Structures are given as structure tokens and as C-alpha cells.
């Protein structure tokens, strides 16, 4: 009878150990590792301005050079361009920004081929919007798109020096 108690105790301990072992061996744990790589974007714009020269009313003039936008080698994502602009203002008058049209093209487009107007609100490049042969909605790393501008002077505007500021926004494509 004296031997029963230690024997049963030993069996219970053995059983509990088995339970514990079974619990550990049957459980599958997974650890998720997440590594976020920082987003680098560097964009070069050159030249820093466009001068259309002296224009006549109702004239439709294309810039003599393109504005080259480069997603530099310091970037690690492709980028999408979004453009917006302020109205052209002089000391006494204003010309709506929609009279400025833009096209992404390797060569100077014909004046009649400009379709998309600039707006005060942000307007994103797509595969069709602002696409004159180049897609400014996906500018690869270390590559350049050439942006050409065409300006129409509406009738009834006073003589003067007009200027506008165009903002080029670059968003990483992830």
C-alpha cells in the first residue's frame, strides 16, 4: 500500500509532463518580419523657367525648348507627375491658366496637337492625359520626360508682362 502512492504520483507527473510536451510539440508559431525600405525621390527640373517672348493677341505659341523632368539615380521608385498652375497675371490683367497646354513628347509637338490644358487644381498625368508620346504617369528611375508648353493669348487682354508658376508634384509609384 505504501508503494502505491509514489507510483501513482510518478505516473501523474509523467502524464503531466507528456501533456506539456505534447502542447509544445503540436504548436506551430510563426514570426512575421516586416522591413520597410525608405522611399527616395529626387527630381530634377531644367530649365527653371520658360519665356515665350513677345506675343500678339490670339497668338498660339509653343515653347522653343522643353522642360526636362528627370527622376534621378538617387530615387528608388518610379514616379508619377501631377501638375497645377496659377493664372498668368500682369500688373493690370489676368489670363486664365487653361490657356496654357502641355504635352509630354520627345520632340516639339505641332501647335495643333496640344490637347490638355493646365488647371489651377492638380491634374495628374495618365497614360492618355498629357501624353504626347511620352508617359509622364510613369517616369522610370534615371530617366527623363520632356514637357512642352503651348500658350494662347485670348483677345481683350491688356498689354503687359504676364507670369505664372507651375508646380510639378512627383509621387512614388509603389
Amino acid at each position, binding site marked *: 500500500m505504501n508503494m502505491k502512492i509514489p507510483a501513482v504520483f510518478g505516473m*501523474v507527473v509523467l*502524464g503531466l509532463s507528456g501533456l506539456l510536451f505534447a502542447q509544445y510539440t503540436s504548436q506551430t508559431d510563426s514570426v512575421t518580419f516586416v522591413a520597410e525600405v525608405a*522611399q527616395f525621390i529626387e527630381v530634377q527640373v*531644367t530649365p*527653371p523657367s*520658360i519665356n515665350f517672348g513677345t506675343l500678339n493677341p490670339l497668338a498660339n505659341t509653343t515653347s522653343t525648348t522643353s522642360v526636362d523632368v528627370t527622376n534621378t539615380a538617387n530615387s528608388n521608385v518610379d514616379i508619377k507627375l501631377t501638375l497645377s498652375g496659377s493664372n498668368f497675371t500682369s500688373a493690370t490683367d489676368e489670363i486664365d491658366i487653361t490657356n496654357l497646354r502641355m504635352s509630354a513628347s520627345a520632340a516639339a509637338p505641332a501647335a495643333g496637337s496640344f490637347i490638355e490644358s493646365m488647371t489651377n487644381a492638380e491634374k495628374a498625368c495618365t497614360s492618355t492625359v498629357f501624353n504626347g508620346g511620352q508617359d509622364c504617369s510613369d517616369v522610370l528611375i534615371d530617366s527623363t520626360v520632356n514637357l512642352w508648353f503651348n500658350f494662347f493669348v485670348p483677345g481683350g487682354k491688356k498689354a503687359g508682362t504676364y507670369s505664372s508658376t507651375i508646380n510639378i508634384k*512627383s509621387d512614388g509609384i509603389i
Partner: protein
Amino acid sequence: MDRFFLSFVFITLLSAAVFAQEAAPKLSFGTIQPDRGATTYPGSTLKFDVYFFIDEAYGTRAAHITISPALVPQDWLVSVDPPLNDVTLNISGVVVSGSENLNVDPRPLLSAVPETSESGIYYIASPSGKGYLQAKKATIQVEIPDNAEIGKTFDLSMTGTAKYYGSAGAVLFTQSRGFSYQITVIAPTYSEQVITQPAANESALNTTEGSEGNKSSSVTVSQNTVISQGGFSTEQVLIIVVVAVVAVLAVTKLPGMMGSGKN
């Protein structure tokens, strides 16, 4: 011979001067966004660092940068360090005034991080592998209100705009970049509660392939109550049975064996 040499030097210097003058200014704007989101608690404060740089290979003009909120959830407070400051600049003899959070000058890529680092400059390896960018840091601080909805992911967006001085023309250019973050608000302490129990019909689970979905329970982190599902796995039940059989055998047979051993 001397006259020829002097002419050559003069022409070379003149060409260099003309080239330097003709080189078109380049506007560059470099940004580094290390974080795209975070998980946090109501009433907490988050900080997101953003870095700005101009590699002088791509930019020749200083960028004057403002950082402003574009999309901020209601009642959330956002601030930027360094804060917006009014500045007056002399640009080629013309005095201009403006506001900026910070300005960044064109700097070269460095082949190695200098032993003595410059105050306020962070040396960050370029993805190009060609060296180290010299960047300045701004910190976006976000204060989450106490009543922010738990379990919801909020979108927060900031815009960094680079302005350049010294150009004249009908159309001038600025550059901008969006910094978007997804911020998930959770309860300060972890908790788990089963909202829906899995279907109890074990045989249905075994025979119907499509019923696998029933095994998953919907869990929400909303209260501090933990309801345990309990129960043993098949392996555990087998071990319990084995242990029980051994124990019964031990109780019934072992004393006799022990006793015979004694004798």
C-alpha cells in the same frame, strides 16, 4: 611659341567662363520618407522624420521648403519641426521675402561618411550606390486625440513644396511631394474576445470542404475580457488515455510486483 601658348590658355579660360555662364540652372528636390504609417493609441503622439537633399549633380539652386498639412483627420493636431519661419534673402542683389520650414543647398555625394559630421546634416546612402547624400531633417509631429476611434485606420497626408529664387520668365516652376501615412488606432492594452463561436459540428467540418471557413472566429480588440475556448487536441487526449491506463495498471499491478520483489 609663347604667343601660341598664351592664346591657347586664353581661349581655354574663355570657353570655361562661357560654359559656366551658359550652364542652365537645374532645380532639384530630393526627399526621403522612411515611414509610411504607424499603429498607436488614443492620446498618444507620433513623430515621423522626413529628409530633404539636393545632389549637386542634379541641382544648382537652393530649395526653400515649406511643409504643410494636406489631409488631417478631424481633431488631430499636426506640427512640423523646424516650424515655418519668415526669411528675407538677397538673391543676386534683389531682396526677396518668404516663408520656409527649412532650406536645402546643393551638396555633392560623398564617397564616405565624414569622421566629423556637420551639425544638422544626415549622411544617408544613396540608392544609386554611388555615395552618401547629405540631407536635412524635418519632423512631423502628430497628436492623436483621446477620442480617436479604436480599430480604425486614418489617412494623413503632408505636402512638401520646394520654391526656388532667381529665375525670370513667363512660367516659373516649383516642385512638391506628398508624404502619406496610414495610422491605425488601437486600444492601449492588448485584449481578445471571441465574438462568434466556430460551428460545433465536428463531422461537418471533416466532411464538407467548404465549411473550413466556419472554423475561423471573428475576433475584435475592444474589451478586456478573454473568453477561452478550452478543450484538448487529439494528441493530448491520446496521451491522457495512455497515462490513465498506465496509472490504473500501476495501481493494480505494481504493488504485487513490488511485493514479490521484496520477497
